[in-house]
């Protein structure tokens, strides 16, 4: 904050920025507010913003009617499962590419990225048929496999950009001081690698949580995560705004909180290190 600006200018910018920030956030705020209304108040005209009888009825009803906990658990299993599996495969790969780069390392990285460019719909049918034949339709295992493959390039890339920043000299220094390979791994490398791995994990959980092509097309009732559960509200039934809002709030709250923590990593991860 080294720039000196007049208080007037700062005030004007403050008002404008807060105004626009509020507008952009408003649909989410409105959903959260509506989730605490009764169905009648949710469609009242003119709508009330804060002065209504706050109630948790919609949350209770969503939970009792639709087995929300199961869909939530599906989302957790699928997003964390695919992320952990992805990390397990990607950590050795990214490690090797960052510390023992060969002539073709760059080509391999670019090729991995190119698999991400294939539109999902191009392989929808074979995946659907294979899943049908292997009995994987509507199973969490199936979705974990698909999401792992989809996100693997991003995981490798993110880890690679983080690992590349770990200076190799530090390893040599540790070795000169007589550290064994094992203690080198445990005391020197792991602490330096953990922050990068954690950011990668966070971003990928978010991406998997919100993935809405495969989760919608490959699940029915059993393995449906929250994306598919919410989609079941697309056919309206009587008064349902408050219930829709309650279900939506519960679906986005965990990831909204995780997301706010990962803002900085998000830029780096989604641009494959092109913008930092």
């Amino acid at each position: 904050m080294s720039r000196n600006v007049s208080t007037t200018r700062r005030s004007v910018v403050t008002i404008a920025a807060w105004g626009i920030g509020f507008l952009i956030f408003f649909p989410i705020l409105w959903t959260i507010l509506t989730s605490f209304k009764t169905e009648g108040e949710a469609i009242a005209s003119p709508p009330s913003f804060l002065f209504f009888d706050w109630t948790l009825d919609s949350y209770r009803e969503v939970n009792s009617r639709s087995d929300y906990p199961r869909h939530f658990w599906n989302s957790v299993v699928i997003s964390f499962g695919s992320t952990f599996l992805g990390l397990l495969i990607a950590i050795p790969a990214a490690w090797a590419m960052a510390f023992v780069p060969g002539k073709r390392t760059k080509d391999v990285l670019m090729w991995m990225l190119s698999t991400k460019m294939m539109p999902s719909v191009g392989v929808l049918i074979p995946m659907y048929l294979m899943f049908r034949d292997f009995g994987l339709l509507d199973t969490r295992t199936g979705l974990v496999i698909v999401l792992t493959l989809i996100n693997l390039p991003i995981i490798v890339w993110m880890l690679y950009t983080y690992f590349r920043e770990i200076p190799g000299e530090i390893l040599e220094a540790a070795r000169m001081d007589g550290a064994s390979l094992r203690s080198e791994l445990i005391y020197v490398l792991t602490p330096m690698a953990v922050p990068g791995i954690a950011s990668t994990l966070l971003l990928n959980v978010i991406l998997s949580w919100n993935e809405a092509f495969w989760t919608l097309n490959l699940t029915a009732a059993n393995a449906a995560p929250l994306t598919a559960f919410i989609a079941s509200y697309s056919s309206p039934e009587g008064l349902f705004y408050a219930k829709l809002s309650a279900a939506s709030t519960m679906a986005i709250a965990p990831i909204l909180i995780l997301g706010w923590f990962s803002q900085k990593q998000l830029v780096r991860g989604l641009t494959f290190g092109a913008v930092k």
Partner: protein
Amino acid sequence: MATLNSRRAARLMISPAVLLLLAWMVVPLAMTIYFSMLRYNLLMPGMESWAGFDNYRWFLTDPAFFAAIGNTMKLVLGVLFITTVGGVLLALLLDQPFWGQGIVRVLVIAPFFVMPTVSALVWKNMFLNPVNGLFAHAAKALGLQPYDFLSHAPLASIIGIVAWQWLPFATLILLTALQSLDREQMDAAEMDGASPLQRFGYITLPHLGRSITVVILIQTIFLLSVFAEILVTTNGGPGTASTNLTYLVYAQSLLSFDVGMGSAGGVVAVILANIVAIFLMRMIGKNLER
């Protein structure tokens, strides 16, 4: 320090990832190409027969295909325009010093974390609905006739919803780029008497150039395959008014069960996405050579 041994170990460590991705890339895609040459309907199992390029001919001459290509382009370009122009303006605003920067940043980035089905349903019901939506309430309060967004302007509505989801992404990346701008250069230009507009045109915009390209290319990849937003708001309709290529292939294969046609559509989608991808790969490839 890379010995022969460590090279071998490295290859061993990389191979699981490479083999898995290779399988993921080759197997289903080969199957799609194979299916696209068949007359194959899931409702008539055992009746598959060789069709050559018939599926492609039908798919590419179907009026729905042209509608879908047009809609895909409008969707991608519309959202790109709103998010890059809006993103640059918003990033410039948020880069100024003001009170509560952290909180406003959090508010602005929030829509990006909302899952597509939620944002589409919330917009469809609570804002765009012609009877109970907030926009309808506002119109009535102003004495206007409520407008039925999703039946009269389905594609524009979807563009709006998708742009709302992606504006935070563009803003966040451009803001990050702005923060790495050399302040001294800016101050020097100001002292030399450059107007704010000149400073923007000659310093800021060129500095943002690469980030804007990255934003455009990455968004294009995701926007080409917008799906959930269409599925839960309009189902591609009315007619094909809001059907994009992804949705058309989905409807063709999983609603009409026509595997052959759907696969041909899938191959077309892959080819189109690859044309875009080539540009993106070049961009990111350049960045690697630092």
